């Protein structure tokens, strides 16, 4: 896969379909690396769960893909663009366009209504107000929370808040949805509900990269599971009869 990379910045050719391509990515803060020499590819439409114990580097990997952090070495190619070479402004614009993010603790803005929370990424991207409202309304209805449009997040349940977060993540129709422990802060039933919702989105073609420490969640809602330990990929498994992918040889 490394050979396919267009190492310079910019989009890959239209023929290249790979959505995420990490090549020999290492992220070191102090001491031992948080992510060590990781190679990973994700195709459009995939639902990949990244698993591992606390401190294994799952969230760091997610942040590197989202452009929230920069690798110490290696390259991060997402939707054909070198995220690791982007500046802060470029990375922010890239996230608006290509990535939706959902978090364990929802990260909603408490002083904005549900609708304003969902609208925000579209407004930051400069989408016309009418179009943005239409998109937000459609998403809220699809996720079953349209009746809360003018409600503040503080009045919603955990599951409802996570639905708002998902709606916000999808408002700019990004090709990639990154989810960091999306069921970690809700009860089991709500977790099931959120999991099913993500699965439905994936069935509709949404690429999904899910970080979780729950094997159950990974097994039920991801087609593929990548296991991280101490920052290294120790396994990459395709679930439900799909052939297991071997970890690509390290250079």
């Amino acid at each position, binding site marked *: 896969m490394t050979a396919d990379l267009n190492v310079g910045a910019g989009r890959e050719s239209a023929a290249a379909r790979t959505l995420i391509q990490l090549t020999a990515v290492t992220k070191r803060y102090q001491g031992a690396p948080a992510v060590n020499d990781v190679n990973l590819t994700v195709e459009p439409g995939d639902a990949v769960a990244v698993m591992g114990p606390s401190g294994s580097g799952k969230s760091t990997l997610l942040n590197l893909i989202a452009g*929230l952090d920069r690798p110490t070495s290696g390259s991060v190619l997402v939707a054909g663009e070198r995220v690791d070479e982007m500046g802060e*402004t470029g990375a*922010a*614009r890239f996230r608006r366009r290509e990535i939706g993010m959902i978090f364990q603790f929802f990260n909603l*803005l408490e002083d904005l*209504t549900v609708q304003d929370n969902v609208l925000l*990424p579209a407004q*930051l991207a400069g989408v016309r107000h009418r179009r943005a409202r239409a998109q937000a309304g459609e998403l809220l209805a699809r996720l079953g929370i349209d009746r809360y449009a003018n409600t503040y997040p*503080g009045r919603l349940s955990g599951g409802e808040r996570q639905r708002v977060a998902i709606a916000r993540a999808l408002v*700019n129709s990004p090709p990639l949805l990154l989810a960091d422990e999306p069921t970690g802060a809700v009860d089991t039933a709500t977790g099931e509900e959120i999991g099913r919702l993500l699965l439905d989105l994936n069935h509709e073609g949404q690429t999904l990269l899910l970080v979780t420490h729950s094997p159950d969640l990974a097994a039920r809602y991801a087609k593929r599971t990548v296991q991280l330990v101490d920052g290294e990929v120790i396994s990459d498994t395709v679930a439900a009869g799909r052939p297991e992918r071997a970890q690509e040889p390290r250079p």
Partner: protein
Amino acid sequence: MSGAAVLKAAVGGMTRRSVQTGVIVLVLAAASAAALLGLTLGADANAQFLGAFASQHGADLAVTVDSAKVTTAELNRTRRLPGVTAAVGPYPETAVYLAGMKHTPGSTPRLPTHPGMTPPPGLAVVGRRSAGGPLDDITISQGHWATRPGQIVLSVKAQYPSQRIGGKVTVTSAPGRPQLTVVGYGSTVVGDEQAWVAPDEIAALRAKGAPAHVEMLYTFSSASTSAQITADLAGLRAALPAGAITDSISWLDLDSMVAATSAINTPYVVAFAIIALVLAVLIVANLASAMVAAGYRRIGVLKSLGFTPVQVACVYLAQIGLPALLGAIAGTVLGDRWVLPVLNGGPFKAQPVPLWIGLTAPVGMLALAASATLVPALRAGRLSAVQAIAAGQAPRAGHGYLAHRLAVTLRLPRPVSIGLAAPFSRPARSVVTLAAITSGLAAVVLAAGLNTSLANVRKDSDLLGQAVQVGDLPVGPSRVGAPGFTRPLTQSRQRRIRAALRSQPGTLQYAAAAWTDASVPRVGSSVPLTAYNGNVSGLGWDLTAGHWYTGPGQVVVNTAHAKTAGHTAGHAVVNTAQADTARLRIGQTIDMTIGGKTFSARIVGKVYAPPASLWGTLFTSRQTVSGARGLSVDFYEVGLAPGTSQQRYEAALSRTLGPSFLVTAFSFGVNGEIGTYAALDTSLIRLLTILVAVLAGLGVLSCVLMLARERVHDLGIFKAIGMTPPQTITMVTCWVITPGIAAAIIALPAGIAVHNIVIHAINNDQQPASLRAALLSTLEHVFTPGELTLLTLAALAAAAIGALGPAIWAAASKTTTALRAE
């Protein structure tokens, strides 16, 4: 758990919050300096002068003597006169023009007859072997004393363009135009010296045909009142040949000038000091409450480690208290060493503030800081450990929903609308921001208003009392009097003067004047009195109360020494039994004995014209003292028509009358003798404005910084969902726009109101009527709408700049770190 642990935790907190710690140091430093200024002025405005007078061994009286008329033996005899406790001199003295000085072309430089004549008739240069005493020590602030010919030391207050040490000045009035090297700058407590050279140099600097003068300095056993000084001077005159003393200046003259300056400075310094104190308290309270709000997790950790509620409160008190202590000490030293000398304005060495003020200012500021910290610190102490650790940060206040809804409808770029609504989410913090911007803008409005007002006063010459005096050149017996006219005018010379005045364009009114001494019970035995022929209301004297005499039997009093009674300067002993002119009331009848004959007159008005020994104490019609022995015509006093240039008039009249007449221009009030003493010196206003503006800037900075820290998690969310750094900077900067607009609405009228209060406070009955009228006239025309708009925009811009630092910090902060700040 020991105190050391509390201290260690406090120091840890200070290190972690280094920006806040730095802000506290700066805020307390600025506020302590302001408090020191306010207290010093409020306690005793003249203490600086009196302190300098004592430490520089100031002389009670400095006299200029015509050396052609005295011998050294005669001068030495004056050292042993009754009442003389010390005498130094004779110091050779002369007047010069230096290249670059303004003067009438072709004229000969003259020694100023009083300090601060504008422009000076010449630069007074004194020859002294050393800067040391025993009287009138010269304090060298730069360079060294002039020890060799060709060197000159300039007074720090010399009315001459500043020269670098080692630079050359050319004496254009001396034969051969000699050049002198500036080797130092010095200050004297005697007001009329502007430069010093080696004694042997004076002869070479004297203009061709100019008389040779020497200066003698004296102290007396009794020199606390103008009457005593007048008596002392009379004793010297009697001991020397007639006409030997050509000029004199007493410590009371200088003291009253400084008092007049302080009467102008005190109101606005106090106003600025109050604004600074309010700002300091607000900022410290804000920082303390923000530190607690942002440190919930830390409080929880401290408590889980075993810190008691009192110890936790002590940690936060120490966290604010230690930098506050450092700032208060720094501010006190700063105020003492740097700000007070600017305030001083006079030509003398700055004095350290009294110990009680030096202690009260920092201790008071520390007490204010502690009281502002107490509530947040106690809140920290009461917080439950579990709650604190669980919350991690201050709970959301639950405010600002409506503001956000309304902001959305503005259809502005989203970062702008979010930024505009954000202050409503943290109303307490926003109120402090609002107060900081309001105080800063009000201070700027006040400063701009004062600058405009005082500039208007300076340039509005029609409102100032200006006059010209004409008489014979001082060659005869010396008399106490304004330009030192020394002999009565003959009838023929009076005719020449009157003819010249009638033909001179710009003459509004003139009157013949006679000087004499009167004995007035409870005022003095030798009180200078001027008797005019006819009506003198147009001569330009500034009345502080009442009216000019309208007929015989009326008198006007000069109250210039109103504040001096009771001060002890140097070794002077105050005779409180001696009545001062300030105690004389309008409507009161006084007896004036001249040459054994007593005249009664009712006091109908008061003027304020320091020094009284120069301008006189009593003014009346010649008819009031008709029949007094020895009353002659000594000079003519001329009032100028509005719009007439005083300098041009003086020059033209001098040309008309010729060199045997002395024509002297002078101003009553602000542009006259008071002016040089920084009465209207706007540098102090600028300094105070900078001080308050820095405080306001720190207030905005601290508020926005605290808000940014409290909202760091939200900032992480914004960035995670695609807010770019420029958008983040825009949003954070907009946090101050709403408080800024509100502040402008409050601060503009508040600043104008404070300006008006200060002007009214300056406008007390110590000031000349012309200054009072000019000040009051400025109240109506201080600001144009354009200037107010400009000030508002400037305040918004300044607030935005104050917010820019935290905004950039917010934009540069790591999103992943911010998101973890749960």
